[in-house]
């Protein structure tokens, strides 16, 4: 019987350009270095049993990433955290380890922090729009999509924009798309280059995952 754990980790500036798939492979190698007794899948090409919550876009940082692992032995959560953190490259750190499975299948909403060169003077008019139409490239050409329903909230503070957006497999809205819409619809606004950070993930009832 395998022992399930889930880990919360952060991805910081040093490694923000590493793509999700490369990150998955990085964790596989880190597990070997850590000598953690990871369970492997059955079949011709056994691979370590790892599960990730929500892929993070290239260039984003995060403090709320979740990784599920299955071990063939029972280990204390402190032991797992220590062994992992000893072998991870700079910029990736396990923040906490928990027993059992996470609720990541229920993931529905994410909170992002965006750090633009310039923040908009006000956001109310933008949020009051009935529809926020953006152009989306699909296989069949360019399509107009309304992103308003996927914006749960936006808060502007000094040098920072916080956005609560739909996330996960049902609807997923990226903060960079919202920034593009703000540049388009807020008169005279130009965000300049932005940094993106994922702060928290929630289920539909806004319970932290």
């Amino acid at each position, binding site marked *: 019987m395998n022992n399930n754990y889930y880990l919360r980790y952060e991805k910081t500036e*040093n*490694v923000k*350009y*590493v*793509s999700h798939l*490369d*990150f998955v492979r*990085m964790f*596989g*190698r*880190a*597990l*070997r*270095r850590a000598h953690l007794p990871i369970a*492997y899948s059955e079949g*011709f*090409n*056994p691979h370590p049993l790892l599960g990730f919550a929500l892929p993070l876009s*290239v*260039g984003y940082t995060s403090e709320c990433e979740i990784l599920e692992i299955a071990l063939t032995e029972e280990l204390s959560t402190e032991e797992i955290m220590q062994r992992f953190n000893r*072998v991870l*490259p*700079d*910029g990736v750190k396990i923040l906490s380890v928990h027993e059992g499975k996470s609720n990541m299948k229920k993931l529905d909403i994410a909170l992002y922090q965006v750090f633009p060169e310039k923040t908009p003077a006000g956001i109310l008019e933008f949020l009051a729009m009935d529809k926020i139409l953006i152009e989306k490239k699909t296989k069949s050409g360019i399509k107009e999509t309304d992103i308003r329903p996927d914006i749960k909230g936006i808060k502007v503070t000094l040098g920072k924009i916080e956005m609560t957006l739909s996330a996960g497999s049902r609807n997923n809205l990226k903060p960079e798309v919202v920034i593009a819409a703000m540049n388009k619809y807020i008169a005279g606004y130009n965000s300049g*280059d932005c940094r993106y950070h994922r702060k928290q993930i929630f289920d539909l009832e806004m319970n932290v995952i």
Partner: protein
Amino acid sequence: MSSLQNLDKLFSKVQKATHYCGGELNSVIKNPEDVKIRYAFAFPDTYEVGMSHLGMKILYHILNKREDTYCERVFAPWIDMEEEMREAGVPLFTNETHTPVKEFDFLGITLQYEMCYSNVLNMLSLAGIPLLSSERGEDDPFVNGGGPCAYNPEPLAEIFDFFTMGEGEDVIGELMDAFNEWKEEGGTRKDYLKKIAKIEGIYVPSLYDVSYNEDGTIKSMAPNCPEAPVKVKKRIISDLDKVTYPDKFIVPFSDIVHDRSNIEVFRGCIRGCRFCQAGMIYRPVREKSADTLVKDACALIESTGYEEMGLSSLSTSDYTQLPELTDKLLALTEKEKVSLSLPSLRVDNFSLDLMERVQKVRKSGLTFAPEAGSQRMRDVINKNVSEEDLIKSATLAFEGGWNSVKLYFMIGLPYEDYPDIKGISELAEKVVECFYKSDKTNKRRPPSVTLSVASFVPKPFTPFQWAAQDSIETLSEKQLFLKNEIRNRKIRYNYHQSDVSVLEGVFARGDRKLGKVLLRAHELGCKLDGWNECFSLEKWEQAFNDCGIDMEFYTRARDYDEILPWDFVDIGVTREFMINENEKAKQALTTPNCREKCSGCGAAKLCKEKKGCVCFE
């Protein structure tokens, strides 16, 4: 020294930012303030190619073991990154600390193939370092070249400040020590170059003058100062068990060409194929003991977590302790769930059994390298493989459950004729036939035979260094001829671009006069020539035309009494041996391999230790 800021703006715009930003596991972080020497190690091609190169890992490790030295990496940026850099005015910088390469003490460039020469110039230009050695000032880094192409460095003589001939593990430290001494002495740039010219294996081109005959051939080449030796002798490591080998490899985040840890089984090759430069310049064969290799493998699995371990050598089957090594390695890799990759294996009962144990389930493809189609031609090139051997191996492979085999060949070889080329398709037919002849093969899946046909490039320090190289037209004709000979649909035919091969041959056997062609090609925008999407024969032809230089001068046959541009380098193997081998080639006579019988090539004298060296078995 300053590390560049605001690179984020560039990184966020390019496709593969992890190729430039550093921070990989096991990359070395030092405080630049704490060291005396800063060494930028450049691989003049993209990150995924350069990071697969073993030599760079070794020298990076050795330099960084020194407390007084910090070695960092730099690669040729891909087109998108170069555009961003040029637009933002950002100079070439290292991956580790993002320091401009121009601020380093050394820029070491490894020269693995001729088609990277344009990248060397492009990287110098991106770095803001003068392209010509003679134009560099006291504040510029010393530009140092090494690797197989450095054995004929003459096309790059005006660009590099010096070259290192042979294996770099020992000499690199001597160069650093000399640098410290020179700093204390307070000499000029030229003083340092004269100082290191006295170190064995170092070639400083500016300390030599070359004069030419009216027909463009070399009249003489001689040192112009007492410090420079008439002959530059290559360096080798005598005892591979004692030499430092990295216990850590940098583990890239993104996929690279050879994404695995590697152990180096031996250097050199006993075979003596007459076209093969590696088989001559790395002589004599020196082996590592199985115990050392297992120790190396353990350390690498522990430090990298790589899921694959490769064995590196020119011909794995020729390793004398192979059964012992693979037993021990398999015990280790099975425990750690690491897969073992065994390139360059000759197919026989032992190796098939081994592959069975290594691969367990997947039976992808097997590769054979007969190199030439007819027996006569295989004797000419001294590839001691008979048709019988090949058919036996292929039958064994098919019976073992492999259904696809790949065969490597060359066309354009010296003394070749059309029947020899036809022999390639005939041989391929026989391989297909042997699948059906045996009743032990799996007939439910039809066999597939892939022919991969390269164009021969004559290389310095081979018995074929005097041979003519076929023109682009002749090579294309031969490729087409072979294509028409292949009628079996189970045979697939792949071939390389012949124009690249000819250009490669021109620079491989080039002289100092080609320096200006390189400069002109750089002006015309040649770069990343190893990449099909970037290579432009038109631009190269224009560069040759603009300089009034004829490519045919370099593809022609040479006489034994002509002074060759690389004659000043002593690789141990004698000129007499090469001539004798070429004469035997003309008569299709073979030479036994080093283990069967010593042919007295001259390399034995290089080895100070007898342990592990084939010459003293």
